[in-house]
């Protein structure tokens, strides 16, 4: 029998160890991310001094700027300065918008968050049931259909799907609104609080604006969602097949539990543990997918910010954006690890 007395001490000790491991992973990954973005900035052929002072600056201005940027110091010192700046929230100034990159990202990030979140929700709502149906009918026609849907989802370029969606649902059928986040007519109705327009509109009771924003959001979110349906359904299927073979599933059936409850209450409850990681991963994929999707839908988010800066050789903005996406990746990873542990009593 497990002794109840020393459980607490044992548990908190184990938690400390887990937290330590997670934190060191985060630290190392973060360090790697900073190193890579830093090195990219170093190898690029664009002269960072010229980006600041302009092409026609006299030699003394140029040299002063060079000193200001710390470019005369050895590489490892520059890297140290870079890390210091990042941690004090200084990602430099965007040449294109002439704001600080941090301010720019603050305004564009909520739009991407909104898009990726709704996309993931759509992916979960379609992908999980699809995967379950496939697992329950393993090897039979529902499984084959789910498999083909999954493979098709893996094969469509997201930017092309977005274009086709616009062509069909906006131009031909008129079911949704076109590019952009909200119609010009409603633009001034909603004061940004969270930056997520639908949330802000709902909070201010501007329901017309809310629905207008929704009709703009639904198509790009669905396009992204379809991408994650492929991944989520496939993984759900394999986790569920694994769970449905377990003895406890038979035990539940012996008790007389209905098949519905066996699948959704018993097997899925176990499959959720690895699924959390999958959903986190697909969320990260969607953040990436938003780079291309946002371009198509003129969505003023982080993805479009990065690509715009890219095409204009605005390196501070590109690297800042990359860093933020990377940091979100790391954060989501950590978050999913924690949720996964909480969902599994054995890991608690």
């Amino acid at each position: 029998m497990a002794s109840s007395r020393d459980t607490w001490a044992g548990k908190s000790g184990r938690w400390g160890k887990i937290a330590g491991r997670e934190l060191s992973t985060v630290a190392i990954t973060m360090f790697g991310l900073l190193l890579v973005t830093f090195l990219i900035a170093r190898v690029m052929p664009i002269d960072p001094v010229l980006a600041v002072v302009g092409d026609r600056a006299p030699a003394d201005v140029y040299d002063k700027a060079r000193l200001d940027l710390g470019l005369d110091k050895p590489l490892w010192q520059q890297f140290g300065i870079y890390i210091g700046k990042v941690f004090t929230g200084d990602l430099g100034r965007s040449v294109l918008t002439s704001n600080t990159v941090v301010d720019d990202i603050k305004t564009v990030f909520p739009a991407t968050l909104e898009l990726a979140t709704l996309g993931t929700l759509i992916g979960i709502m379609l992908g999980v049931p699809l995967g379950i149906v496939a697992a329950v009918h393993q090897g039979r026609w529902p499984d084959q259909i789910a498999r083909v849907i999954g493979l098709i989802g893996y094969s469509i370029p997201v930017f092309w799907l977005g274009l086709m969606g616009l062509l069909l649902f906006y131009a031909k059928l008129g079911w949704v609104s076109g590019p952009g986040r909200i119609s010009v007519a409603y633009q001034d109705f909603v004061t940004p609080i969270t930056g997520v327009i639908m949330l802000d509109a709902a909070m201010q009771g501007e329901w017309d604006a809310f629905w207008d924003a929704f009709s703009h959001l639904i198509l790009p979110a669905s396009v992204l969602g379809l991408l994650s349906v492929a991944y989520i359904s496939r993984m759900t299927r394999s986790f569920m097949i694994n769970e449905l073979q377990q003895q406890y599933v038979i035990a539940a059936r012996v008790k007389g539990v209905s098949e519905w409850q066996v699948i959704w209450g018993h097997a899925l409850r176990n499959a959720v543990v690895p699924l959390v990681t999958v959903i986190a991963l697909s969320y990260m994929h969607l953040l990436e997918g938003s780079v291309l999707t946002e371009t198509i839908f003129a969505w003023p988010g982080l993805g479009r910010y990065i690509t715009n800066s890219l095409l204009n050789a605005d390196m501070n903005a590109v690297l800042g954006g990359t860093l933020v996406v990377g940091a979100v990746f790391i954060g989501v990873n950590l978050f999913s690890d924690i949720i996964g542990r909480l969902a599994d009593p054995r890991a608690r």
Partner: protein
Amino acid sequence: MRAPDSPTEQPLLELDNLRVNFHTATGIVRAVRGLSFTLGRERLGIVGESGSGKSMTGRAILDLIPHPGEVQADKLVYRGQNLLTMDKGSRRKLRGRHISMVMQDPKFSLNPVKTVGEQIAEAYRVHHKASSREAKERSLTMLEAVQIREPARVYDLYPHEVSGGMGQRVMIAMMLIAEPDILIADEPTSALDVTVQLQVLKILDDLVTSRGMGLIFISHDLHLVQSFCDRVIVMYGGKAMETLPAAELADESARAHRHPYTLGLLDCLPDLDHRKDKLATLKRDPAWLA
């Protein structure tokens, strides 16, 4: 020990020419080929090697044969109800409430992400309209009945937090809470430490006897079955080799009447009281399956 059923009482389970076939890519696998028996309020042992079809018999009675398998029988009747013509939903309602099963390894047969209490209470609520509080009280009583000392504490434990012996007692509580008439025990102690095997068996026996249930005890262990059951079916290759009262197994004088396979099973076990130079190897004759 109870006497076998009086002839006036209706048997709990009647089974005639039960067959379980699996249609696979390489042909038909016959797991059970024509098994017949009648179960009263008694303890019936089914003994055989692995692959003899004993577990599949239990699963077939419960309508839990997995996908490519199919069940056929001339007769499969539970207390006058024909199970062969019954729809899936009604078969399900019989499970747990009327016919239940204790499985081999509590480590795998309890759901790892639900507390043991939740799982016991669920077994009750599937069949009874009861508030969650009532179900919990019932479950606690049941945990006491399987001799768990601190039911309230154990109720909130997860399966990985209980030992094997305790897990199996939880399993018994879960499978008996809806008060079934028949319990199938499929190797209920094989996964347990030897030290707790007898304890668990005793609990199982007490509950089955006091509630007047019919027990089908599936095992590969002839000695265990012999001391624990009233009647024994010896199975080989999906067929019953013979059916006999358990007492006769130990009866040396009755050896001449025994089936050679039964003798083989008896002889291939070491015996502390009678020294044997060499353990016999089990002989199998394809003619027995004809």
